[in-house]
């Protein structure tokens, strides 16, 4: 990132240079007083040099607080989806950005532009030039030097200015920055490395002046040993869910996605900044919320101090102190670091397993089948409908664009299904790899979107994004005994493996399909299961609460059936889809019977909004359920914090 060019710029010339830059680009400079400093267009306010930091980090310029993603319109029988990608605009130069914010932008670049690149961020970011101005004074809550992201900017800038006596030392970071120098080249005097000594001396002096100096060397160890410390309750009691902290944070990236209805035939999909500090961030349908107040407050701190860095290699907290400045109840990340260190010294717990286990973090570059933007669905038409149980329906559908079927690759575990005008929900893929010209979904009516889906008719249209998510590793199952355990509608995610297993049954040893439910009528795939049971090495077992005459069923929990299976447990893989509590109960019994935790496969489906690892709703610890999962093995599952 660093190129070697160094310049000096006379302080008196700065305004002239800004005006020259303002001819080709829109220059934004810090304007305001006290703690109220904003980036405003040059000449719309008086530029100030008397400030510690901007009130809001520069991320607000490239990742807008609210933005429309696409517009849909219904026209008789068709639905048109128009992507509202950010349009190209005049380049903007943001002048006066501090080291903590340039670090923040370097992180948000990594976050939004890789794996599934965010098209709107990409567009705005490419039209933004960052000119950092380094700090000579620390604010009350500044701790960039303790974290290592400041005091002088080292990443994320196109140009960095360090104020010396009568001049600025100018460092070029990128070709964009070099181009800025060229635009006003008469004012920039090239210089050599010898000047860097003066810069380093100045930096040392400024760092020495910081009131806050913290030693964070053992922080992750300390955090592992204090996950359940008492002080977290005090912090949680104070939090009122105002979301101020996440709004002002340079490394916060989460958003929510909603349908905004214009009328019956027109609507918008909109996204807006969201916050993990509000209780509905992780709340699922039917009130299940994997995070309580303590987990919620603790999660932000762990994410900033640990999880982001574990996953992306960038510090999650750049030490700007804004969250501490803004909190109305005085929750301070600085004080919390102190509490963590104190508790680790005086009252450590054995390190929590989910804080010290290294589990899968491979970043997969995904190619999408669709040519549409990341958040824009493809339209599909419902071709057939089947009522599976009173509460579960099966919808068959085809993309309106036949090319999508031609290019369809069977990978992933779920689709994001849009009901235009209502919303979008993730639905598991229940069909097998041979099914490429018609997509099928089995779902239960549990919320407002599935309610609308439930009442749809043949010919109605939905939107599809996907397939996303990590699927069951089918190839690793060959020549093994297999046990499928699913309760009620949870059989659907398993069916995508069951179907090819049934078709290629000779590739596998003993296969047990264990279906559980309250009543036989509530079971999914009742007819298919009777067919599957006819295959020689496949057995279907039923565990029901209420007895039935339809099939021979065990009355009780599905776990009870396990010990009677006469198989070589060391050559067995189990695939379980159920609630986390049931998964744990079944897994414990399987481990007792001699299975290894890597051979127990589960799907963990949490509250998902974007499906592509960006909105943050499905994040558990440092993992995203939608891209790292939803399929995990049991060892990996146990290494996740218990917040799913």
């Amino acid at each position: 990132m660093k190129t070697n060019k160094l310049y000096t710029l006379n302080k008196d010339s700065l305004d002239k240079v800004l005006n020259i830059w303002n001819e080709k680009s829109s220059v934004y400079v810090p304007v305001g007083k006290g703690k109220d400093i904003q980036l405003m267009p040059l000449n719309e306010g008086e530029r100030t040099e008397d400030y510690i930091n901007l009130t809001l980090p520069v991320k607000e310029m490239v990742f807008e607080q609210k933005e429309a993603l696409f517009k849909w319109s219904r026209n008789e029988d068709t639905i048109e989806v128009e992507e509202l990608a950010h349009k190209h605009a005049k380049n903007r130069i943001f002048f006066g950005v501090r080291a903590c914010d340039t670090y923040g932008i370097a992180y948000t670049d990594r976050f939004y532009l890789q794996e599934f690149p965010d098209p709107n961020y990409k567009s705005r970011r490419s039209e933004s030039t960052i000119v950092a101005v380094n700090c000579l004074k620390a604010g009350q809550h500044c701790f960039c030097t303790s974290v290592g992201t400041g005091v002088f900017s080292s990443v994320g800038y196109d140009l960095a200015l360090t104020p010396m006596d009568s001049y600025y030392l100018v460092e070029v970071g990128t070709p964009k920055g070099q181009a800025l120098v060229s635009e006003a080249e008469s004012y920039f005097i090239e210089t050599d490395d010898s000047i860097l000594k003066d810069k380093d001396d100045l930096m040392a002096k400024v760092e020495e002046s910081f009131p806050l100096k913290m030693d964070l060397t053992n922080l992750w160890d300390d955090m592992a040993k204090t996950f359940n410390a008492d002080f977290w309750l005090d912090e949680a009691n104070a939090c009122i869910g105002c979301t101020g902290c996440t709004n002002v944070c340079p490394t916060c990236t989460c958003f929510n996605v909603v349908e905004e209805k214009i009328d019956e035939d027109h609507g918008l999909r909109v996204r807006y900044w969201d916050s993990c500090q509000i209780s509905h961030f992780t709340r699922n349908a039917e009130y299940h919320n994997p995070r309580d107040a303590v987990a919620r407050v603790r999660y932000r701190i762990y994410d900033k101090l640990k999880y982001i860095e574990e996953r992306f290699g960038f510090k999650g907290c750049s030490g700007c102190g804004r969250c501490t400045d803004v909190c109305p109840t005085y929750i301070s990340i600085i004080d919390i670091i102190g509490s963590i260190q104190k508790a680790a010294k005086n009252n450590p717990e054995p390190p929590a397993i989910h804080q010290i286990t290294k589990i899968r973090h491979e970043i997969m570059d995904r190619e999408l089948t669709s040519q549409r933007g990341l958040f824009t669905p493809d339209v599909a038409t419902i071709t057939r409908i089947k009522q599976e149980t009173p509460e579960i329906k099966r919808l068959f559908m085809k993309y309106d664009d036949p090319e999508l079927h031609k290019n369809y690759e069977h990978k992933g575990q779920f689709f994001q299904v849009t009901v235009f005008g209502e919303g979008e929900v993730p639905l598991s893929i229940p069909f097998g790899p041979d099914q490429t010209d018609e997509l099928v979904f089995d779902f239960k009516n549990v919320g407002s979107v599935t309610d609308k889906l439930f009442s749809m008719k043949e010919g109605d249209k939905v939107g599809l994004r996907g397939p996303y998510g990590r699927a069951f590793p089918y190839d690793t199952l060959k020549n093994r005994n297999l046990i499928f355990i699913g309760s009620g509608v949870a059989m659907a995610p398993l069916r995508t493996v069951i179907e090819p297993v049934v078709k290629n049954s000779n590739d596998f040893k003993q296969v047990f399909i264990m279906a559980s439910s309250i009543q036989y009528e509530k079971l999914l795939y009742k007819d298919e299961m009777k067919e599957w049971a006819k295959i020689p090495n496949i057995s279907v077992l039923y565990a029901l609460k209420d007895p039935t005459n339809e099939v021979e069923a065990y009355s009780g929990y599905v776990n009870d059936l396990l010990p009677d299976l006469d198989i070589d447990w060391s050559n067995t893989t189990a695939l379980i889809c159920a609630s986390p509590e049931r998964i744990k109960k079944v897994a414990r019994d399987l481990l007792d019977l001699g299975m290894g935790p890597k051979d127990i496969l589960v799907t963990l489906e949490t509250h998902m909004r974007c499906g592509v690892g960006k909105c943050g709703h499905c994040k558990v610890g440092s993992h995203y359920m939608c891209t790292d999962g939803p399929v995990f093995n049991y060892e990996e599952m146990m290494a996740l914090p218990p917040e799913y």
Partner: protein
Amino acid sequence: MDEISNAEMILVIGSNTTEQHPLASTRIFEALDKGAELYVVDPRKIRLTDFAHGYAPIEPGTNLPMINAMIHVIIKENLIDLNFIKDRTENYEEMKESVKDCTPEWAESISKVPAETIRQFARKYATTDKAMIIFTMGVTQQTTAVKSIRALANLAMITGHVGRPSTGINPLRGQNNVQGAGDMGALPDFLPGYQRPEWPETKERFSKIWGDFSCLRGNNIIQMFNLIDEGIMKAAYIVGENPVLSDPDQTHTIHCLEKVPFLVVQDIFLTETAKFADVILPAASFLERDGTYTNTDRRVQMINKVIEPIGNSKPDWQIMVEIMKRIGMDVNYKNTSDVMDEINEATDIYGGITHDRIREVGIQWPCPDKEHPGTPILHVGEFKRGKGLFTVNDFEFIGDQRSEEYPFIMTTGRVTHQYHTGTMTRKVWTLALEYPHGFVEIHSKDAEELGIKDHQPIRITSARGSIVAPAMITNRINEKTLFVPFHFAESPANRLTGQNLDPIINIPALKVSAVRIEVE
């Protein structure tokens, strides 16, 4: 407000401060950081109690006995400020006599607050130099509203906690401009600046500014709806208020709105009340107009327009001017600054507050002239009437009580992320998602007895009506007590509340309704 940070003892009665006035609670936290002590009185273990040094789990509607008992303790244990009483007050002996039987034990039998707790609160308040009382609707939305506030004044005066920094009795106002609206005479018995219409000098002053006008005392909101019901009031003009959700006895409110021959509603969105209107006047929101707001600090502050009014909406003051013109009045206001000039002329307390003077920082009234800097603390040295008057405030029970038919007491209130009738907040995604619907808080013991599960729909019925809301089981409320927030039109708490009124000012006891519950 900043004086809260310097208080040494803070007594919070009937205020869910962290959830409703978070910036006031910020200052409470600042005080706590400096070693202050916090004492909370509330029928629910509100979040503020997690930080309190003392908590009184009071039975709804029984503030007055507790306050009188605190006064009794302070007098009995000789913790009074004798000098203050001598120099600055009158009628002490009569008041002292009136509380001689108000023992903590007596108060406990009514309020369910343990006698020792009452003593603890009283002693701490009396013996701390900078002690402040903070209160809101828990004290005022009661049949004992006026008496309770007068009793709080008694309490502050016997201990000399008035007219000095970080003392006093401090109501936290709810709406951002309720103080300003009252200051401007949006009250049935005051003209702007709290000048009474009966006073001859008031009549003369306003006749000069406005010409001939009616000096008849008006009607408060309860009286207005009753006059509609009686067929006497023939028209109603409702501005920025949603009585269908915020007034007691919703059935009666709706009946009146249907009955009134002519109804105008002026609001920023189509509210439940606006649906009954004959004429709807769309108003502009706070972003679309300028003017001033006056906050709980008595501070008058500028608000600045940032976008043009959307569609056909207009700022409230412009709508008013348009109507005045059509009535044939000679009006000449070009902008809100013109209106401010008139306010300067008409009211002494705002005499010197102009837009130019408050562009950066607001000014606290009284501010009689353009040189005056404003008044941070009231009643310094002298009360407005001269000496502070001790009053007799005997407790008598008026209102709903538990019975066999209605064995629960329901109290109402608010949640953090919704505001009042949700006109604005239920339209904001984040806020609406946080609380998508209403609920009823019930103690776990009561829930168990009735076989109620969390989130289960519960039917709540009072003598006035019935609603359904999902149960929220908690241990942070007294037994046989329920809490229902009033923001949600589909489970409107005010369908259950009634017109049990404070006899002096007619505020309804929204905090106390007898109800029964059953699984829906």
